[in-house]
């Protein structure tokens, strides 16, 4: 049995603070926006949708108590529609798709909606606490450091400079601006409207076409104080004693933007598609996750991708386009260095540095962006990968049909 993708949509992304355009829109509203879109777009018989699998990282307050079922209930799809919320940190949105695909491939479910949501303006990152960082008996032996320290550690260990990261960041902004300008996102990017139908936001709020390396060079590093005052530089060096100093090179301009947004993909069997008159756009070739040492944390994409490639019987050169989450500029840089992939195949329409990283949704957003771009260029295969907190990596390979 194959798992097919019939569609993948996302909301526009609003800045993830109290001034952000989407701050007044609840995560339930963002999710239901997409559920409505898919129903209307495909004239969906909602009784045939069996489950809603949503990734969400900070599952507390507005996002607590199973946001997936909350949205399912509010969507009008019917009481039969179940919902499950999962947390694989930044890989959640892709993990949701992978789980949906696994259900379909196993024959346990025929039609599933999978994606993710994160309203970072309404629910602060880290608001759910957690033992990994806070429980001394866990964090001490685990050499816990915040992600920004991990990003700076990668740069220090593998020799990436501030200039490297700033150049990458400026390129991300320019690629995203060009793609937005050319309308590449229009097919799957859904504006968010309020309860009256008034448009709240119809574009990605964070893209800054004017960004240059000169502008970025003026920004102060974000994690120097934390590294010093919190003792985390020393923690990183304790774990990586070959590193003399943790160079703090990441700043708001070369790290992913904090934003609000949701994304959803429709995953199902061929038969389920035929019953609904849906045309498969791609199939899932393989999926993988892989855990790495947690202090350096963000180097998982390359090893996870190697496993996915091996499972698909492919090599890196068989992949036409890559989407690597730009949590920090150094993550795709290290990915390209490690796997040996050229920049012109990676994040061709920009990434999270320009458009933002709504934690639980990003995996599904990258997935949709990749699918659209493969179609636009009439290419065949693509790989999506994200780095994940706690030292994980996730990868999915798709092939157009």
């Amino acid at each position: 049995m194959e798992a097919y993708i019939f569609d993948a949509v996302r909301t526009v992304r609003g800045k993830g603070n109290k001034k952000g355009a989407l701050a007044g829109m609840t995560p339930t509203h963002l999710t239901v926006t997409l559920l409505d879109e898919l129903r209307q777009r495909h004239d969906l018989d909602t009784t045939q949708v069996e489950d809603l699998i949503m990734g969400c990282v900070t599952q507390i307050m507005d996002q607590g108590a199973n946001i997936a079922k909350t949205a399912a209930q509010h969507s009008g799809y019917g009481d039969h529609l179940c919902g499950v919320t999962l947390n694989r940190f930044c890989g959640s949105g892709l993990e949701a798709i992978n789980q949906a695909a696994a259900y379909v491939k196993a024959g346990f479910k025929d039609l599933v909606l999978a994606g993710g949501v994160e309203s970072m303006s309404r629910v602060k990152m880290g608001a759910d606490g957690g033992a990994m960082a806070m429980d001394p008996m866990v964090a001490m032996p685990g050499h816990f450091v915040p992600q920004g320290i991990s990003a700076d550690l990668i740069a220090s260990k593998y020799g990436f400079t501030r200039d490297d990261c700033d150049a990458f960041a400026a390129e991300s902004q320019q690629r995203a601006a060009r793609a937005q300008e050319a309308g590449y996102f229009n097919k799957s990017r859904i504006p968010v409207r309020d309860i009256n139908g008034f448009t709240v936001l119809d574009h990605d709020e964070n893209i800054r076409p004017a960004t240059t390396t000169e502008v970025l060079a003026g920004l102060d590093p974000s994690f120097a104080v934390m590294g010093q005052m919190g003792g985390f530089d020393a923690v990183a060096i304790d774990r990586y004693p070959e590193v003399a100093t943790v160079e703090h090179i990441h700043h708001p301009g070369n790290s992913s933007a904090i934003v609000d947004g949701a994304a959803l993909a429709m995953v199902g069997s061929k038969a389920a598609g035929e019953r609904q008159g849906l045309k498969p756009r791609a199939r899932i070739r393989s999926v993988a996750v892989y855990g790495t040492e947690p202090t350096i944390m963000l180097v998982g994409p390359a090893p996870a991708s190697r496993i996915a490639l091996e499972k698909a019987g492919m090599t890196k050169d068989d992949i036409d386009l890559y989407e690597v989450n730009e949590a920090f500029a150094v993550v795709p840089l290290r990915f390209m260095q490690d796997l040996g992939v050229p920049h012109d195949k990676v994040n061709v329409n920009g990434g999270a540095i320009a458009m933002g990283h709504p934690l639980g949704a990003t995996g599904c957003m990258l997935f949709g962006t990749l699918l659209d771009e493969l179609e636009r260029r009439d290419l065949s295969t693509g790989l999506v990968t994200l780095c994940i907190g706690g030292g994980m990596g996730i990868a999915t390979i798709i092939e157009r049909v």
Partner: protein
Amino acid sequence: MEQPTIKNSILSYEVDADGIARITIHMTGQPTNLFSLDFVEAYVAAAGRALQDDRVKGVIVTSAHRDFMAGADLKFIGNPPEDRRGLFDGLLRMHREMRDIEKGGKPFVAAINGNALGGGYELALTCHHRIALRKEGLKVGLPETQLGLFPGGGGTQRLPYLIGIQNALMVILQGQTPRVEKAHSLGLVDALADNEEDLLASAKKWILEHPNPLQPWDNRKYRIPGGGVMTPGGAQTIMGAIGNLRKKTHGNYPGATMGLAAIHDGLQLPIDRGLEVEARYFIKAFYSPEAQNLIRTGFFAINEAKKGKAKPEGYDTYQVRKLGILGAGMMGAGIAYVSAKAGMDVVLKDISQEQAEKGKAYSHKLLQKKVSRGYMSESDRDAFLDRIHPTTSADDLRGCDLIIEAVFENPELKARVTREAEAMVDEDKVFASNTSTLPITILAQAAERPQQFIGIHFFSPVDKMPLVEIIVGEETDDRTIAAAVDYVTQIGKVPIVVNDSQGFFTSRVFGTYTGEGALLLSEGVPATMIENVARRVGMPVGPLAVTDEVSLTLALHVMDNMREMPEHTQRIYKLYKTLVQDGREGKKAGKGFYDYPEGAKKHLWSGLSDLFPSNPDALDADTVGKRLLHIMALESYRCLEEGVLRNTTDGDIGSLMGFGFPPYTGGVFSYIDYVGPASFVAECDDFAERFGSRFRVPDSLRNRAVSNQLFYPQKQVV
């Protein structure tokens, strides 16, 4: 009716006419009040009587000793009961009893009239109010983490309520014992009193004004200052505390981590459950090898050594009233300072009056610091300085009880000054050399009375380094050893006694550390990694940095004097030589392994990797760390086998205090126990195979490993 008063060997209890009861702790048979299970029993009985007696309005808890209470009874801690579960149950029972007193409805006030440390301060925390006497040197706090433990008498659960999580963590994790004024400003004590009378009067007043007090942790409306654990501020504080604790301890001190965990886990609960959480972690920390190591060596062994345990039996105290020092350089000047500080008259002789005066000026400089900070009066400073007599005349040495020569490390010069000085003192007096490199037996040949010649090896800077290595020459007699030990204890330092041999004990063993650092570098391990791993395993300074301090030139000089150099020493020699040829002689030269930029932090020289190509994957960090510590432990064992060391305890003390061997290990011999004799030998065998014969294990140590014989056998713990 019950007897209104109690008087036993632990405390007295009496009630005054106003209904104010007083519990006065006065443990007999020991120098101070110590927290113990016996104490708790007596205290609970007395407090219980107060609660039951309707006439009693409240209780003042105070002391008849110099200390309020100096801490827990370490005799008990150093000899832990086999029954862990029993100890845990006992701890919980104590908490229940103390809680009953807290909730008994009558005010208890701690009238802190002396040091309140550890368990003593935790006792004060169970009282409803703490008033301390404003007294010079009076300290209040929780030093337990210094012994590998953490406050296990409720301190982790109660203190954060009073001063907030952040401040409580600072006191607890750093083992702080602030002076009384600082303790007051931090909130460790609620009020200060100027004298004993005022102290008791204030306590009484507080009792009369607070008839039914509620502890903050029993008050539902009370909020922890700065917020609890699960608040944004609390979470930030805990996360930062974890990072900074690793920065400081590298994870080598599990007791501190568990103290932090007790706060994290316990403070989210009602106090009774929090105390239970604390007790679970405390038992674990209490039986940890790190805590036992720290208590055995860091506390007991050092304290006993300080009292002169190394002194041969049967000799009267050798009083040093007048001390002669030959050579007023850095060492001589330092010895003059510490000796004058102990009240001795010091004759400080050098070849020129100017040099001698310069040596005295060193003391002036140190004292001036105290005067300017208000710790010393000008008249005390002057009296101190009057005890130091700079001179060029050997005649002034007449009447000295002890001569210490501290001239240049030149045998002929030392022989000359020895003969000159020896002639001036009475025949029964002792002569010592402060040499750090020359054999005492050879130097003693210049002496008229070689049996009264001994080595007294101070470490630099003398005023700060507490260890003194006493070196026994071939002819040195026991009376002379006894005299040297007496002198060292009189100046308040810690003596160990070793037999004469190349490098004695400390220099010889420490040389293996610096040497191993160089060898690692020569094998392609990056310098950064060597230095970072050395600190990670607990050494205060990396081997390359410390070689810079010593100077590569000096190290080469020592090696030049060796009769033969083993293969690995030749490699070290070559490596040093390569750097020295480049002008990189060490810190003094402004460049060695490190660069020393003016006004900035030193950093490893960027050219090192060109001279010595390296690769981070050359060797894993754990092996790097083990090589650095194992080689020192192995060399120490050789010292023991060769009779350079007389016992393992001196080796443990000497390694901790002489060259900064990590305290959590308990010292070089405790370290072998800590690693496990079988593992230690197996790892050395592996290292001998891979890295060279210097890791070859002596047969006697191998035999110990086979039978798993420990240097410090411990009771089988359940």
